[in-house]
C-alpha cells in the first residue's frame, strides 16, 4: 500500500517539475534570436514581408505578451492541442509529428537497450569472475573502446563496410521506399507488421534496424559492462559471499544467487537512465542512419525555431525522465528488501 502512495506522491511531484520545465523552455525559445515567422516569410521582401509577418503573428498570437502566450499554451496543451508546426513541416500538428517520430525512437530504444542489458550484464559478470585474466583484459579493452569510439564514426564505418562494400544491409532509413504503405496500429513497425502478418515488411524493417541498433547497443554495452564488473568485484569480496562459499556453494551459485542481486543496483541505475536518455532521441545515430525519430525531430525543430515542437518534446522528455527515475527507484525496492518506501 505504501508503494502505491509513494508512486502517487512521486507523480504529484511531477506537476511542479513539468510546470517549471515548460516555463523555462517557453521563455527561452521565445528569447532566442530568429523566429519561425521570419523563416516562413523567407521569400517576401519589404512591405509585403512586414504585412505577412504581422498577419502570421496575429494568427499565432506572437504579438501578445509572453506570459499570456504561455498560459494559452498550457491551456491548449492540457486540452490535447499541442500546437502546430511552423517550419519543420508547416501545417502539420505537433501531435501528428511526434506520434510518427516517437514510436520509431521507442522501437530502436527497446531493441538496443534489451540487447545492451543482456550482453552487458553477462559480459560484466564474466569479466569480474575472471578478474585480470585474459578474458577480462579483452573485455575491458572492447568496453573501453565502446566508451571512446564516437557513435557516428562507428555508424559510418558500419555503413561503409556492410552497405557500401558488401551491400548486405540497407544504408539508412527505417524501411525500403517500396514498402512504405504499412497500416499503422501501434506505430511500432516490427510489431505492426507481425500483427498484420506481413513478414516481408517485418524482415525489411529488421534489416534496416540491425546497424543502428547494434551501434547504439555497443555504446551502452560498454557502460553496462563496466558498471556490472566493478560492482560485482566489490560484492564478490564481501563477508556474506564468503559465508556462501563456506557453506559449500558452487561458485556459479555464489555468483547467481548471492552476489548478482546485490551487485545489480548500480547497473539498474545505468540502464534506466540510458533508457530514458535514448527515448528522448539518439540524435547522432538518427542522423547517421537518417532515421526520422525524436532526435531528428528535435534537432530540426531547434534549427527552424519551431516553438511548439520544441516545447512538446521537452514536455515528453521530462515525463519520461521522471517516470524512468521512479521506475528505477521501484526496481531498487524489488532487488533489495532493505529499501522501503
Amino acid at each position: 500500500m505504501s508503494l502505491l502512495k509513494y508512486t502517487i506522491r512521486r507523480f504529484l511531484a511531477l506537476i511542479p517539475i513539468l510546470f517549471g520545465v515548460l516555463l523555462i523552455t517557453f521563455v527561452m525559445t521565445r528569447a532566442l534570436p530568429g523566429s519561425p515567422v521570419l523563416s516562413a516569410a523567407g521569400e517576401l521582401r519589404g512591405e509585403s514581408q512586414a504585412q505577412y509577418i504581422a498577419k502570421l503573428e496575429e494568427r499565432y498570437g506572437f504579438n501578445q505578451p509572453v506570459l499570456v502566450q504561455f498560459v494559452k499554451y498550457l491551456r491548449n496543451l492540457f486540452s490535447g492541442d499541442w500546437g502546430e508546426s511552423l517550419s519543420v513541416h508547416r501545417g502539420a500538428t505537433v501531435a501528428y509529428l511526434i506520434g510518427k517520430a516517437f514510436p520509431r525512437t521507442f522501437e530502436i530504444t527497446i531493441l538496443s537497450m534489451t540487447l545492451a542489458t543482456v550482453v552487458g550484464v553477462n559480459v560484466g559478470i564474466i569479466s569480474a569472475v575472471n578478474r585480470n585474466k585474459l578474458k577480462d583484459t579483452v573485455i575491458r579493452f572492447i568496453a573501453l573502446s565502446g566508451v571512446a569510439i564516437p557513435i557516428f564514426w562507428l555508424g559510418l564505418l558500419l555503413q561503409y563496410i556492410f552497405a557500401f562494400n558488401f551491400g548486405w544491409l540497407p544504408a539508412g532509413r527505417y524501411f525500403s521506399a517500396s514498402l512504405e504503405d504499412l497500416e499503422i496500429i501501434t506505430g511500432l513497425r516490427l510489431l505492426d507488421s507481425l500483427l498484420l502478418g506481413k513478414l516481408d515488411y517485418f524482415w525489411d524493417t529488421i534489416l534496416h534496424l540491425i546497424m543502428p541498433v547494434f551501434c547504439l547497443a555497443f555504446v551502452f554495452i560498454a557502460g553496462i559492462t563496466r558498471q556490472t564488473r566493478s560492482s560485482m568485484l566489490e560484492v564478490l569480496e564481501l563477508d556474506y559471499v564468503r559465508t556462501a562459499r563456506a557453506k559449500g556453494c558452487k561458485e556459479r551459485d555464489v555468483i547467481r544467487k548471492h552476489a548478482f542481486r546485490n551487485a545489480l543496483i548500480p547497473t539498474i541505475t545505468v540502464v534506466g537512465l540510458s533508457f530514458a536518455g535514448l527515448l528522448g532521441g539518439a540524435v547522432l545515430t538518427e542522423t547517421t542512419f537518417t532515421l526520422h525519430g525524436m532526435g531528428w525531430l528535435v534537432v530540426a525543430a531547434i534549427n527552424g525555431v519551431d516553438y511548439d515542437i520544441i516545447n512538446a518534446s521537452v514536455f515528453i522528455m521530462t515525463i519520461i525522465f521522471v517516470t524512468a527515475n521512479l521506475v528505477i527507484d521501484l526496481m531498487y525496492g524489488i532487488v533489495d528488501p532493505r529499501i522501503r518506501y
Partner: protein
Amino acid sequence: MKNVKDMSKTFNNLDISGASQKMTKNDVKPLLIVKDLHTYFFTQEGIVKAVDGVSFTINHDEILGLVGETGCGKSVTALSLLKLIRSPGEIVSGEIFFDGIDIVEKTNEEMLKLRGNIMTMMFQDPMNSLNPVLKVGDQVSEVYLLHQMEFLKDELQKAKEKNSKLKENLKRMKKELKTCSPEGAETLKNQINAIKQQIKFRITINDIARREAAALLDRIGLPNAETIVNRYPHELSGGMRQRIMISMGLACNAKLLICDEPTTALDVTIQAQILDMIRELKRKLKNSVLFITHSLGVIYELCDRVAVMYSGNIVEYGTVQNIFKNPQHPYTQGLMTSIPRVTRESRAQELTIIPGMVPNLIFPPSGCRFHPRCDHAMVICKKIRPELHEMPNKVQVACHLFNKDKSGEEYRKLTEEEKQEDVL
C-alpha cells in the same frame, strides 16, 4: 576406549595386543592436524606473511581456542582450513589433515562437499555475514539443499504421501457428506475444512528444506521461528542474526565447527547466551570446535586447550588450566595482565598494556617476531626464531628464555634502541 581396554584384558593371553594398540591409537588420533602451515598474500606492496609456520591439532570432542591480537592471522588460519583463501592469497606450504583427509591436496570441487557439511565455519560480525537480499530461511535451508539432498528427498516423499492420503480422505468425506444425515453433516463439514487446510497444493523440495530450517531455528531457541524464516537479515537483531549464523553451522552435523569471533559484535548478555548455546550444542553433538577470539575470558570459560597466536605464529599452546595457571611466554603473560579481573587484590594491581604496535606482516621483525615489544628480549631473539618446545607442565612455548644453556653473549638483554632497530 573402555571397550578396547576390556577386550585387551580379556584376551590378554592371545596375541591381539597389536590390534588393540592400533585401535586405541586410532581412537585418540586427532580430528584435525595442521603442520607448519604457511599462508601468504601476494599483494602489490609485498608478500604478507599472514600465517607463517603454524602447527596445531584438534582432538575429537574438544574445543580449541585460538587467541591473539587483531591482524595476527587467526581468520586466515581458519579460512585456510576450509581452503577459502582467495587470490592474491595462497597456502604456500604445510599440511592439513582433517579426519584423515589431506585438505591441501583437495580440489575445489572436492572441497565443496566438505565445506558447510563436515567442517563448517561461522563468521565474526553477523551483521555482514548474512546476505541482505535473501530471506534468512532460504539462507539456512540452502545448507540442507547443498548437503542433505537424500534426507530431503525422503522427507519430500513422506510429505507427498501424507498429502495424497489427505486428499483421498477428503474425497471420501465429500462422498459421505452427500449420503449422511443432516446432524452428521455439520461435524463432517468441519472435518472437511480442517483437512482442506492441511492439504498443500504442491510440495517442493524447497518447501521441505525451509520447513527443516524453521524446525532448526526453533530448536536453537529462536521464538516464532515460522515467521522468522520469512524475514530478511536487516529485520532481525544482532543476537538473532548470530543465531541464524550458528544454525547454518548446525544444519549439517559438522565434525568441526570453526567459530570466528562469533560474539564480538554482541552485547554481553547475548554473548553469554551464544556461548552457552555453543557449549550445549557441543556437548550434545560431540563434535569439535575451533573457537577464535580476542578474549581470554571467553577462552577460559569455553575451551579445553588454547593456542596463543602472535603475528602469524603460535607462541604458546596447551591446556587452558595450565596456561592460565602459569603463562610462560612473555606475550601470553602480557595478555593475561591486560585483562581486567574483578577481585579485591586485583583492584590494587594495575592493568598493564603490551607496549608497541602489531608488527608489519610484510617485513616482520627478524627472529622472534615479538622481540621489539618483549621485556626479556635477548640478542639471540633477534637472530633465531624460537621453536615450540614442551615445558615441564606439558605446555608448548616458543621462546628463547627457556633454552637450557643461557650463558654467553647471545643471551645478553637487548637495549631499547637495539630492539627497535629494524622495525619498519
